[in-house]
């Protein structure tokens, strides 16, 4: 079929090497390789298969919350309460365990806590749509942290590592592959599939690109935001589980700043805070870039304060690069 005027409209996408190589992800690939080369120079053991796999354990627990954070950014929203949510969830876990609740139930309570925290954010934001997510989640960030502090004060609750299967969540391996890495791969694959291959995922992009047009197209915008904010709470609790398994104890000041790390990973991966942009290959690359960089800097005993300087600088420079490129282009044209 053609138009009345006899034209046809092309529906096949031509593959172009130029567009393929100009993708943002190649920049991340280069960064990733660069950081690994640096690390390999720093430690002769680094490039062994097992060494690489073990390195992932140093940062992956935070990455779980970066997955739904990417969804939040696609929607054009933001959630800065996830660090506090993770903390409160971990505190609930340890608190219940110390009361004699079996560990299995404690983990469920932990996940439930995170889910409720996420649902609170979601409920407020979808019932009062004119409120800014940054402000609301700033409020709940303080609130959730406050509850955790009220429960524990300055104390630590511990003894979690006496449960073998629980501490194996972080420390255990299947063959040579850490269990946490396996969990992450499965979760990331599911998140990527949902975003890129399902109607739900397409709707997320539509909402982020134009909320009003999405609503007119019959998309239940608030329902979807509710789901995503709740899911984010759940995954903040997943992070809490791994964190608790790693440390064997919890305090009311753990997981501070996790929200910013999750946002940083997602932004570096190509997700814009304006919404409607980004993809999962980029996010996973960014997670490993930030993680491996931290690991490498740890190898040469760079103090953690300085580490923040490096990671902050990296983030700023990388997100600036596309802008610099287009600026150069414009200047060339003007000349």
């Amino acid at each position, binding site marked *: 079929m053609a138009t009345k005027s006899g034209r046809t409209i092309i529906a096949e996408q031509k593959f172009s090497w130029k567009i393929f190589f100009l993708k943002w992800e190649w920049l991340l690939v280069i960064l990733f390789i660069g950081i690994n080369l640096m690390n390999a120079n720093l430690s002769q053991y680094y490039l062994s298969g097992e060494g690489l796999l073990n390195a992932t354990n140093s940062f992956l627990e935070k990455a779980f919350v970066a997955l739904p954070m990417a969804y939040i950014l696609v929607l054009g929203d933001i959630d800065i309460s996830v660090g506090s949510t993770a903390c409160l969830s971990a505190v609930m876990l340890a608190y219940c365990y110390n009361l004699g609740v079996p560990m299995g139930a404690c983990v469920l309570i932990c996940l439930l806590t995170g889910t409720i925290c996420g649902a609170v954010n979601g409920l407020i934001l979808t019932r009062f749509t004119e409120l800014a997510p940054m402000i609301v989640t700033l409020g709940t960030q303080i609130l959730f942290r406050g509850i955790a502090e009220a429960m524990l004060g300055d104390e630590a609750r511990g003894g979690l590592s006496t449960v073998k299967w629980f501490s194996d969540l972080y420390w255990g391996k299947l063959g040579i592959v850490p269990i946490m890495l396996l969990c992450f791969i499965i979760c990331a694959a599911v998140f990527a599939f949902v975003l890129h291959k399902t109607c739900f995922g397409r709707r997320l992009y539509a909402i982020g690109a134009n909320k009003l047009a999405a609503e007119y197209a*019959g998309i239940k915008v608030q329902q979807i935001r509710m789901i995503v904010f709740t899911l984010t709470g759940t995954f903040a609790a997943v992070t809490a589980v791994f964190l608790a398994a790693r440390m064997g104890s919890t305090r009311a000041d753990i997981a501070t700043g996790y929200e910013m790390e999750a946002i940083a990973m997602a932004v570096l991966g190509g997700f814009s805070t304006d919404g409607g942009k980004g993809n999962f290959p980029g996010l996973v690359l960014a997670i490993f870039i930030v993680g491996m960089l931290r690991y490498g800097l740890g190898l040469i005993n760079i103090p953690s304060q300085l580490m923040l300087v490096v990671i902050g600088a990296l983030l700023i420079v990388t997100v600036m690069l596309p802008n610099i490129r287009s600026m150069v282009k414009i200047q060339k044209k003007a000349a």
Partner: protein
Amino acid sequence: MSEYVLELKGITKIFPGVKALDRVSFQLKPGEIHALMGENGAGKSTFIKVITGVHKAEEGEMYLDGKKVDFKGPKDAQKAGIAAIYQHVTAYPHLSVTENIFMGHEIKKRGILQWKEMHALADSYLEELNADFKSTAEMGALSVAQQQMVEIAKAISMKARIIIMDEPTAALTKNESEQLYKITEKLRDGGASVIFISHRFEDMYRLATRVTVFRDSQYIGSYDVDGITNADLIRAMVGREISDMYPKPEVKIGEEVLRVEKLTRTGYFKDVSFSVRKGEILGLTGLVGAGRTETVQTIYGVEHYDSGKMYLNGEEITVKNPADALRQGIGLLPEDRQHQGLILDWGIGRNITLTEIASIGKNGLTDDKAEREKAKELAERVDTKAVTIFDKASSLSGGNQQKIVVAKILASNLKVIILDEPTKGVDVGAKAEIYEIMGELAQQGYAIIMISSEMPEILGMVDRIVVMCEGKVTGELQREEAEQESILKFAMARSSKAAKN
């Protein structure tokens, strides 16, 4: 002294990949109102930006009072007495009217702003324009018409001799337009020359003495308004004959499809009842603010209603959100296609299929291949001027964007199609094509509701007319008995009653 206050010769402006203006000429006499017409994308806006110094032309010359000028930027044009008033007012909404008027040329004494003097001056300009607001009002709190007045006051304050108005009436009601006409004439009588861009023929006939037409980046000609007919103008603008602007086919009208009864949303509309039948085009008209858009948005589920009932094929339905409406077969082409109808950043294909991704795919998954086929089929059906379905919606002209929104509606399995101002901001050629599609849809048995403020369109395209005024249905007319006067009488029924009391 030259015969022309402004003259442009052989202006060529090239953007990467496109010639936006191709050896265009233009002459403006002192003290005349000169209409500039052409389809969207004909180069009018670029041309204005060349005059106001925003763009620099690659070729060509510009003369002011016979002297050659070369503007380096907008400041130069301002100094030379050229001011532009745009359709979308580019103001500072949080500042006062005075601050907006004097932005960039404030009155200062020894570096200190003279507020008293500026407020007084601003008020005197506003009085001159018969404005019903004060200089201390906040810009953002004003209506579009009032904001335009502020822009005009700004032009007066800068002692502009050449005033350019870019589609100023597009967002105005009839009364507001009339007021603008009067102001424009006043400016002319004060010695200014006015370039008036508009899609509306009424504007041109009412105001201008001469008209210049652009088409496809080229100058087509300048004509005396007295000696030109509609048909001549359309031919000049479109480049071909449009034999029948309103190709309304004769359709056998079937049984009732949608009926609303006493639909009420407090504060917006009250007890609205009407029905539409299979194959029928129902016109819903009235002045801006009569509650038409609010009514159809409620039927579509964007807004909620407080009381009333809706029936589809005789059965009562409830619509809580657009998803409900679409599932039951009611679709809406929203009033504001750029914000409500399209995702401008997306390709047209994805836009067209967005509503129906779930039914095109399976089990909640998207099916890219099937989507591409569907998008291609629909994009071709509405004859959009896109090359591929991956072209961004933002890259199309207004008329073609509107066709994409129509295609998007056609993707769903609908019984009732509601079109809210389907030809607003659409040029003549694309308008005729949209009417043609409407006619075809009626033939295919859709029930169609069209909201429109344009009388010729209502009279030309619809079978029956429902007129609203201040949130109530004030009249219903058959096509045969409808005339502009009878419609207007109903449209102003309540306000005239109020005036009498």
